[in-house]
């Protein structure tokens, strides 16, 4: 409840009225809380990194070594992870599955979003609403019936089980995001093309898509990240160790009942996070603006 009181005091003045606040006051109301937030939000990453390069002796000896620091950094955990476990294979599986699911969903979503937003067929509004509702159906409700289906279709323990089920949450999301993007493209451009005799397909590929490259990039990054992070389907539909994805593999194969290989676990978590973090940092502005845009829609 102290937080609410803070919020009360912390009214915002972007630009204009900021000079009304003295520096000491700003330190207490803005910089200090921001520092605490940053420490709390980033500490797990620091801890992950430091553990990944810490020798086992230092890791369990808090008396002679300060746990917040590492005296003799080692690459032993990373070497073990990359050379003695199936980790590289999991990375490859995750890349293949995420890429395939992303492109499949993006293709379907582009067509659907264009049809809903611009073709305005009868019932387009209702279909748009249905797509939105589809996004609200959580995987934790679907995984049991889907596992029955996946088994009956002979997809169990194959990458296709994931490539075909991930679009269930990727398509609604991408469609919704792209609908917002297509809406921002002026109608006049399409009308000109129609008068010049372009077909709908030509309009889509030659006018709308080139104009919505930023939207396609953010939808693609979102979709890739969501598939990369997916857990419950991958846990349920894949059994063989070598076919697992990174999140499932790290959790189920690196954790043995007797010994916890914390160094290798943290290295696995760190390396598994890197691709999405790198991807995200390249496109962070797209990411933030489209995330907020998608929510505002």
């Amino acid at each position, binding site marked *: 409840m102290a937080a609410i009181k803070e919020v009360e005091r912390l009214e915002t003045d*972007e630009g204009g009225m900021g000079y009304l606040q003295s520096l000491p006051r700003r330190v207490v109301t803005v910089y200090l809380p921001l520092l605490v937030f940053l420490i*709390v939000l980033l500490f797990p990453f620091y801890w992950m990194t430091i553990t990944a390069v810490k020798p086992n002796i230092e890791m369990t000896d808090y008396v002679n070594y300060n746990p917040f620091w590492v005296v003799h950094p080692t690459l032993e955990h990373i070497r073990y992870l990359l050379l003695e476990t199936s980790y590289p294979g999991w990375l490859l599986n995750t890349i293949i599955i995420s890429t395939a699911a992303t492109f499949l969903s993006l293709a379907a979503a582009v067509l659907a979003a264009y*049809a*809903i937003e611009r073709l305005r067929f009868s019932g387009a509004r209702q*279909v748009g609403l249905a797509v939105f509702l589809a996004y609200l159906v959580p995987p934790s409700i679907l995984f049991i019936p889907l596992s029955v*289906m996946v088994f009956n279709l002979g997809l169990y323990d194959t990458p296709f089980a994931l490539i075909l089920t991930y679009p269930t949450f990727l398509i609604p999301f991408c469609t919704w995001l792209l609908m917002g993007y297509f809406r921002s493209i002026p109608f006049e451009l399409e009308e000109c093309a129609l008068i010049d005799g372009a077909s709908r397909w030509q309009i889509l590929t030659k006018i709308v898509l080139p104009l919505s490259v930023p939207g396609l990039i953010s939808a693609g990054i979102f979709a890739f*990240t969501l598939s990369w992070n997916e857990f*419950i389907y991958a846990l349920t539909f894949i059994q063989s160790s070598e076919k697992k994805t990174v999140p499932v593999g790290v959790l189920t194969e690196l954790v043995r009942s007797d010994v916890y290989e914390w160094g290798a676990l943290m290295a696995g978590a760190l390396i598994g996070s890197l691709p999405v973090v790198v991807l995200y940092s390249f496109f962070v502005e797209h990411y933030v603006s489209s995330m907020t845009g998608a929510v*505002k829609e």
Partner: protein
Amino acid sequence: MAVPSVAVQTRPSIRSRLAESRNALGFGFMLPAAALLLVFLTYPLGLGVWLGFTDTRIGRPGIFIGVENYEYLWSDSVFWLSVFNTLLYTVSASILKFVLGLWLALILNEKLPFKSFFRAVVLLPWVVPTVLSAIAFWWIYDSQFSILSWALQQMGLIDHRINFLGDPTNARASVIAANVWRGIPFVAITLLAGLQTIPQSLYEAATLDGASRWQLFRYVTLPLLTPIIAITMTFSVLFTFTDFQLIYVLTRGGPVNATHLMATLSFQRGIAGGQLGEGAAIAVAMIPFLLAAILFSYFGLQRRRWQQGGGD
């Protein structure tokens, strides 16, 4: 559109043909998405409801047994415990995420150096795969080598190690904390976007009228932010309610089912235990709660619009 209206004037029949082809084209364009969603989303949703009425097990097709699964669950104390846990988890995590997320959004909305850097860094917990960050929390919460216990001991605040995940109350607090950690960025960044759409002139006008800082927040910021708060929190509540990964990594529902959520119980009974029918019934039992959350926010927004004199 210009073209059809011209065409209509000269040849009336073309209008219906155009509409027809637009529908045909629309159908063709919708086909890939609709096929994937119908087969892998709508059908399993129905199949799930059906499975809930059968005694299907892994490797054995079941027969219709009516509401037996639900009768069994009704008298199952573990199921009710999971319902209670899920509600506790959702409500407390959502409130914390909202308060802390709004606070962070207000801070980030201030004039700051390196603002875009902070905004980018703050999102990291949300970008990183939940399972992987949950593994980091698992290590942070370790019963022997927890860095939190160590730090608190060094500061002299506690005299023995905290058993984060072994004690029911601690375990609940720990998983909620981890969920809040992961959820704050999403709430903060979306609310920040909402804050940035509020015109500065409103604050200036209110200040000239003598509004205090609390009044500025209460009567300018909050009302203008309500729609985006409602949408953000609906999403946040839905995702928290159906959470699975964090619990599966940190506690698997233990100790003594104290952190079992409906989703993890459904997995434990349905997939790990092989009782697909019963697992499906637990999953179906989540649907009324989800619908209630969606309708609550939907009608909440409607009422607001109506109060403001909006059209629909």
